[in-house]
């Protein structure tokens, strides 16, 4: 009887041993998946610097060549847009506001530059050599050539495609003034490089922006990532950063672009920013800015041709209903960082401020 029980025990334990890998493997994978992100920022201990020193480090940044991959993630509290189906094309205008995007950036000096926005089964390229600029869209099979009249800096050309961390950081750092508190968070590791964590906190209480965190490369001062936190959120509402970065000079052939056979080539001189919905610049519809700093409000008057057309076509889109909420006096487009108020009389007010403040501003007019 005893022997039988032993055999039974042996059987049981053999069965357990054979199921052991099936239990251990997922546990192992789960622990690695948890541990790796935790370990990423552990053990970064850079020489102590004051916020001012880090600002100076960022200001003195002299990176001339790089190739890197940028990831941009937004969670602005917008409804998720369909990525397939009939609404897909309407969604593309707003796609930069939602979800994740990846781009590759290649820079060699101030005149050679290539940005590739990596879309699903497609790609949008910007290739610049000197004053020659090519914009290529693999989905539409179009190539747009333009010649720049002046020589803008490294930053100016990727607007409308994706913002690079250094561009965004430059804009944000420009506005560091008395309305902002600058401090340092714990050191970071970004794209396998060590970085100081510069934290900008608005002093104004009326803004939606909680704080901005900029990772400044400890060696070169290059901003490696920017994260925007809304007042109400723990995770960044918007973040853009390098996931890979190499400071070596990229292959020269990357900056040589010949439009492929079969692509529709158009010439544009002087270059107009066509990839962005036009913002009216005519005198009749000049936007006015009230307030300064983080809680400023931009107001676009009614009747401005493009804006009116834009708002009519916007209102007829099925997405309009999904994205906006109807309130007294107009429609509201709400995100965790920015609110836009479209009044019934056609005005547009926008700012990183609470809805009530926009409505008040609209009523005051």
């Amino acid at each position, binding site marked *: 009887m005893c*022997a*039988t029980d032993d*055999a*039974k025990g042996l*059987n049981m334990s053999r069965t357990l041993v054979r199921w052991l890998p099936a239990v251990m493997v997922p546990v192992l994978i789960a622990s690695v998946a948890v541990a790796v992100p935790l370990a990423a920022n552990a053990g970064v201990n850079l020489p102590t610097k004051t916020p001012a020193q880090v600002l100076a480090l960022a200001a003195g940044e002299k990176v001339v060549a790089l190739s890197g991959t940028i990831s941009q993630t937004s969670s602005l509290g917008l409804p998720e847009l369909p990525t397939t189906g009939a609404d897909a094309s309407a969604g593309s205008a707003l796609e930069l506001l939602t979800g994740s995007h990846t781009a590759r950036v290649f820079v060699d000096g101030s005149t050679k530059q290539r940005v590739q926005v990596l879309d699903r089964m497609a790609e949008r390229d910007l290739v610049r050599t000197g004053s020659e600029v090519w914009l290529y869209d693999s989905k539409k099979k179009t190539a747009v050539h333009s010649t720049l009249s002046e020589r803008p800096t490294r930053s100016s050309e990727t607007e409308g495609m994706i913002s690079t961390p250094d561009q965004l950081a430059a804009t944000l750092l420009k506005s560091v003034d008395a309305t902002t508190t600058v401090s340092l968070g714990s050191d970071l590791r970004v794209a396998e490089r060590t970085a100081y964590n510069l934290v900008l906190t608005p002093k104004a209480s009326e803004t939606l922006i909680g704080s901005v965190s900029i990772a400044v490369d400890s060696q070169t001062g290059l901003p490696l990532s920017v994260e925007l936190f809304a007042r109400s959120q723990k995770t960044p509402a918007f973040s853009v950063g390098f996931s890979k970065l190499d400071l070596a000079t990229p292959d020269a052939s990357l900056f040589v672009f010949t439009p492929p056979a079969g692509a529709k080539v158009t010439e544009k001189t002087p270059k107009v920013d066509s990839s962005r919905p036009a913002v009216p610049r005519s005198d009749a519809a000049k936007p006015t800015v009230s307030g300064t700093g983080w809680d400023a409000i931009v107001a676009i008057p009614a009747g401005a041709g493009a804006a009116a057309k834009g708002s009519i076509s916007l209102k007829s889109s099925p997405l309009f209903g999904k994205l906006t909420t109807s309130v007294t006096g107009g429609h509201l487009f709400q995100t965790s960082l920015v609110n836009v108020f479209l009044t019934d009389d056609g005005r547009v007010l926008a700012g990183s401020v609470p809805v009530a403040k926009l409505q008040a501003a609209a009523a005051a007019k």
Partner: protein
Amino acid sequence: MIPLASEFAIRTESLTKRFGSQVAVNSVDLRVPSGAVFGFLGPNGSGKTTTIRLLLGLASATSGEIEVLGRRMPGDLAAVLPEVGALVEGPGFYPYLSGAANLYRLDTADGHATSATRRARVQSALERVGLSHAAGKKVKAYSLGMKQRLGIANALLIPRRLLVLDEPTNGLDPQGTREVRSLIRLLAAEGTTIFVSSHLLTEIEQICTDAAVMSVGRLVAQGTLSELRGVGGARVRLESPDRDAASAVFARFGMTMAEPTPDGGELFASFGTVEPDPDTVVAALVEAKVRVRSFTVDRPSLEQRFVDLTGEGFDVAQ
């Protein structure tokens, strides 16, 4: 006396297999002597095939121990199975492959089998079961009997110490059944232990040296054939009113008269050491004025014994 392990080709100790609440094999202690042709008998559903699966490591026992060729199963499975050829619950083959290709395939599964002699071994195995002519034919075109032979050929790809044949004559015509029986005799003569299961008693009775009987998951009898038939063997049944005279005549032939049965009409006598010629016995009875209404020599078949053991006839499924 606890026998040495090597005396037995198969030995199980309280072997039990449960499927949920149903006990398929209930505390079975098998003893298959090395070199025996062992008949494993029982009606369909009595647990024979499940026992064979346990012996070959296809299923794991709920409790109990198994020793095959002196080694523990399923612990030493990798060392034991190359020495065991088996046919389990009918043949299983790839219908879209030829008979020879099927054997070739199954032979590659044995990591110990030499690939250099594979082709020759496949050919000779097919020859032994009389399938050479159909070697290149796809198995889906085989009859059930041919598949059965192919299954036996698979068991013979390598010289084995033990062959486990589950219902080997299933689906064979009488001629095929005779061939399988003679093949088993031949293999046994070469010293291979053969464990052959069947629900058809008559098939086994002619070739076995030993047998065991399963009924409803239990082992109800086990031993050599003569042990199973019961001591004494044949007996005489005589219908006669002259009991005393008959008894005297039987005594002359060294026979013993049994106690009378209640109804009195029939008399039984068992033989002594020598079995006399029945004609002589009848002549002597007649000469002694014994009125012989009928005279029969009963040879107890295993069947009778099994009906006693299992409480039912053989072809009855549980």
